[in-house]
């Protein structure tokens, strides 16, 4: 009998893998940022599932504090990444990463 916390932790692992795939596979910067967010969400889900101790016991408070801090930090990081993406598009004219001049064949 698998407990529901284990199911949620497995879902978190799947979310992490999907976010990593999107981060690596798509060239568009906005999509990379979305992938990074989904990756972080997967990690949060694993942490909260680890803190769960059954439906009638109080859960472990330390991972909860970690995750709340993590959510706020990830919003700040997303804002910074988005403003960098807008700047990259303004300078290079493209919303995706282009190779450096000396790297180009």
């Amino acid at each position: 009998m698998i407990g529901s916390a284990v199911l949620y932790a497995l879902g978190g692992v799947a979310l992490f893998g999907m976010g990593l795939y999107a981060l690596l596979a798509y060239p568009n910067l906005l999509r990379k940022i979305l992938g990074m967010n989904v990756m972080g969400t997967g990690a949060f889900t694993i942490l909260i599932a680890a803190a769960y101790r059954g439906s009638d016991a109080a859960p472990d408070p330390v991972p909860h504090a970690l995750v709340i801090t993590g959510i706020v930090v990830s919003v700040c990081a997303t804002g910074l990444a988005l403003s960098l993406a807008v700047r990259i598009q303004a300078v290079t004219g493209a919303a995706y990463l282009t190779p450096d001049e000396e790297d180009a064949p």
Partner: protein
Amino acid sequence: MSAFFQLAALFLLLNVGAGLLRILRGRTTADRLLAVQLFGTTGTAILILLSLATGESAYQTIALVFAILAGVLGIVFARYGQPSAPASAQSQELKHELN
């Protein structure tokens, strides 16, 4: 009684899943916005039912936040979500290549 509340919450969650189908299939942006609106309303109802099932009153506060959020998100969407600039056919093609 608690089992009945759980059953109703499960039913409403299945409704949310059907709304997800509309987001996936929806032809225009406005259709997707309406589906997000459905998520807000149904989510509020699910949280109320879960708070009845477990007797935890903190969930009602989350329902309140959902209700506020649905309105704010809808207004932000209506302001920013429409394709605004006269995008030419060429830039549309470019977009499909890059995404």
